[in-house]
């Protein structure tokens, strides 16, 4: 196939490859292609959660803005969501219950987690968006 000028900007699903983070509860999607995302700073990745899992236990923050998206797997019905997730926000650990499709906006510096997918009756598409190329956690001091 002839080399294209812009094909380098496309990350495609990697057939037959598993993420080292894959478990029976969580399936991160593996993309292949770009090394540096064309110089773009923001990042996006997603996983499917099909069983309860305590995903991250340690409260932490970041030096960048972050968005956590919780969606169902039925694009024809955006409200088709059947799961319960508990997410702690702030240094007080204020618990938020997520049981509908939700976007959580986490400004830089806001302490968050644990994040616990407590009940999964239907698989959840969990999408993580960050505004920096490197994912670095700052533990709570």
């Amino acid at each position, binding site marked *: 196939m002839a080399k*294209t*000028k*812009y*094909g380098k*900007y*496309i*990350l*495609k*699903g*990697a*057939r037959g490859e598993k993420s080292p983070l894959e478990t029976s509860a969580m*399936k991160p*999607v*593996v*993309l292949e292609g*770009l090394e540096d*995302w*064309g*110089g*773009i*700073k*923001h990042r*996006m990745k*997603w996983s*499917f959660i*099909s069983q309860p899992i305590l995903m991250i236990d340690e409260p932490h923050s970041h030096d960048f*803005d972050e*968005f956590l*998206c919780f*969606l169902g*797997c*039925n*694009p*024809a019905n*955006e409200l088709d969501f059947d799961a319960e997730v508990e997410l702690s926000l702030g240094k007080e650990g204020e618990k938020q219950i997520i049981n509908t*499709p939700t*976007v959580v*906006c986490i*400004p830089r510096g806001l302490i968050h987690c644990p994040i616990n997918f407590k009940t999964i009756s239907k*698989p959840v*598409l969990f*999408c993580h*968006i960050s*505004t920096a190329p490197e994912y670095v956690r700052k533990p709570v001091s």
Partner: protein
Amino acid sequence: MAKAKYQKYVLKEPRVSLPPKKPTSVPTFGLSEELMSGIGKFDCNFNFVGILAPHVLADPPHKHDCDELLFFISTDPENTTDLGGEVEIALGEEWEKHVITTSAIICLPKGLQHCPVYVRKVDRPFYFGHLLLAAKYGSNANILG
């Protein structure tokens, strides 16, 4: 007045009813400046659109003066690689054609022209969306004529 012989051939206001059209896409969730108004300023907006059937997306060829990601997400947890459909997108001012059949992200550095997007085939609904490093979609968009 006597009834005209041939009047029956003249159909006035010939309205026809069309069969109900199934939607080809549905907006689902995302982030906008309006939604964010109560919680602070984030230089980021995105959306997820459910793609249900073949169609051409409304966006004409355009480019932005900030970076953007376009994403395509298979919604089958048992088959996260195959998109469940086929999408064709034009990249660059040459309209270089690229065909997407897997989950994918297209990285669009600022200034890179993109679109139109043709959804050619949908075997199972999937998500498509954009992620733009600007508070509002359009604020940093230069739509080409």
